[in-house]
């Protein structure tokens, strides 16, 4: 986690596993895509859960903890995705994103603010020049139940309004009924509509049920050109769990080993405490490696997490426990 304790990064010799041979033409047809996705090795459920649990017991203290808390703050996609969002709420959230703790200028800013498309102009206006990016959900978030034309219009709308990043949802119905090519083509189309904006692909792992499906969906999203794979919308429980993040981190690691392209991971939903966030950072370091310990490659979708990180930070600075009274409500 920190320079003083972390072992040197392991040199990865790019292996060419048999199931990844000829990756270029797996998306050529529906049949080849299905063959590839079903040819991925199955996830050892017990093993994945045990490993996630074991890594979660790592003790991160003092200097390493301070470093991890600041890193986690810089990785946050500060999110508000409610029907009751107002321009005022978005402005307040943006202010918090740029200066999480007004009484302490040493607190770093967060990575991005994540809002619904119609709130993008407000966020862009407030955040301009601050270095905090604007992410927008699109493609009929959170269900994704709309025609492709509507999804693309939704995406273009957000991009035109100035969103730097687009969080799309995949069509879980199509995925679960085995129409992988349809999901693939949809992601490719949205990717095109994004232009220069980064594309995060939300798999909604809570609806995919199994880790095998999470692994397949991860590969599908990466093959289709997603810049990030994201666990959940935050509207479905379970959202981001450690084992599912582990499976996705393995997928991005293997994908880079195979193709040379690095894809980011974003767990979202259910990460509320500094402890949870640090567990995820340990998982990143131990699974994908420290190349991913960077806001460009790992994000955490959250809202209440930020206050807990700030409280922990204050505790470390002052030596006494802090309370929610001293941080903004959101």
């Amino acid at each position, binding site marked *: 986690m920190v320079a003083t304790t972390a072992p040197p990064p392991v040199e990865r010799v790019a292996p060419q596993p048999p199931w990844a041979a000829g990756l270029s033409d797996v998306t050529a047809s529906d049949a080849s895509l299905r063959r590839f996705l079903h040819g991925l090795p199955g996830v050892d459920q017990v093993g994945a859960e045990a490993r996630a649990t074991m890594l979660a017991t790592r003790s991160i203290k003092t200097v390493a903890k301070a470093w991890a808390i600041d890193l986690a703050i810089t990785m946050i996609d500060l999110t508000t995705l409610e029907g009751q969002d107002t321009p005022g709420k978005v402005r307040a959230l943006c202010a918090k994103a740029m200066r999480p703790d007004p009484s302490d200028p040493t607190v770093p800013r967060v990575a991005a603010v994540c809002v619904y498309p119609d709130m993008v102009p407000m966020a862009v206006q407030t955040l301009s020049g601050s270095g905090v990016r604007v992410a927008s959900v699109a493609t009929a978030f959170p269900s994704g139940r709309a025609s492709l034309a509507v999804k693309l219009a939704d995406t273009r709308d957000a991009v035109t309004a100035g969103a730097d990043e687009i969080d799309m949802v995949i069509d879980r119905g199509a995925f679960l009924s085995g129409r992988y090519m349809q999901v693939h083509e949809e992601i490719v189309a949205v990717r095109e509509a994004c232009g220069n904006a980064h594309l995060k692909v939300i798999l909604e792992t809570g609806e995919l049920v199994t880790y095998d499906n999470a692994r397949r969906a991860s590969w599908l999203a990466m093959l289709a050109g997603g810049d990030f794979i994201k666990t959940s919308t935050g509207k479905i429980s379970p959202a981001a769990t450690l084992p599912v993040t582990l499976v996705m981190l393995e997928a991005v690691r293997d994908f880079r080993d195979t193709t040379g392209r690095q894809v980011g991971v974003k767990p979202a939903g259910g990460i509320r405490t500094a402890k949870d966030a640090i567990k995820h950072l340990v998982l990143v370091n131990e699974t994908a490696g420290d190349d991913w310990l960077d806001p460009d490659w790992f994000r955490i979708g959250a809202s209440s997490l930020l206050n807990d990180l700030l409280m922990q930070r204050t505790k470390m600075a002052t030596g*006494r*426990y802090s*309370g929610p*009274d*001293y941080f903004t409500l959101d």
Partner: protein
Amino acid sequence: MSERIDVRKTYKLYIGGKFPRSESGRSYEVTDAKGRFLANAALASRKDARDAAVAARAAFPGWSSATAYNRGQVLYRVAELLEGRRTQFVSEVAAGEGLTARKAEALVDASIDRWVWYAGWSDKVMQVHGSANPVAGPYFDFSVPEPTGVVAVLAPQNSSLLGLVSVVASAIVTGNTVVVVASERSPLPAVTLSEVLATSDVPGGVVNILTGRAAEVAPWLAAHMDVNAIDLAGAPVDSVTDLQVAAADNLKRVLLPRLDDWTATPGTERMFAMLETKTVWHPIGV
């Protein structure tokens, strides 16, 4: 028939309506007044105090917004359960404080009566402590008492049940939630009280009971920015000033220890010490 083997007890903490072991994994031996082993009790750490404060904060909105009538009913029900555990309390108080059974019985009876007495105050505090204020303007001006929030309570060291009941009931009856550090030398009545509370209608987190050393845990509670008041009844004598200094950071209400005779009529002071006053200026016919 062979002789029965004792079931040796290792008690746990009471936090948020659950009975966790100390996060530190530590425990200590509780002995009676003559030094004979009674049971093992959990030795709470600062992180247990932290968890307890979080649980108390979480329970505060629900408990403080319950109607006074409802809080009173809930507390009366606790008194009924205390009565049901009377013999257990008597033996624990007698052993812990080195008293005869008769004296212990008198203390336990007084404790239950004390609990009932405080329960009765729930719907009377506002009449007695609140007021309608005469003002020179077209306003109906009135002041009402409100609970201060999370109260850290260092329970008296020498009165393991009557003293404990006096400091806990006086704080929660008005809607506060508490983190209690029980008497270090005789914590068993506090442990039994937590078992009573767990089976009563008091929501989890309203009362959290830690056993262990006040000297270890109290500084963390006194400095905790999310604790609104601290009752130093059982604070180590030499640390009272330090605890007051630590408590000043967020302007906690501090109740200083005095030479309390816990058997005397308590009066309203303890209750009123943990209240805030809200004054409303309500415009009237202009």
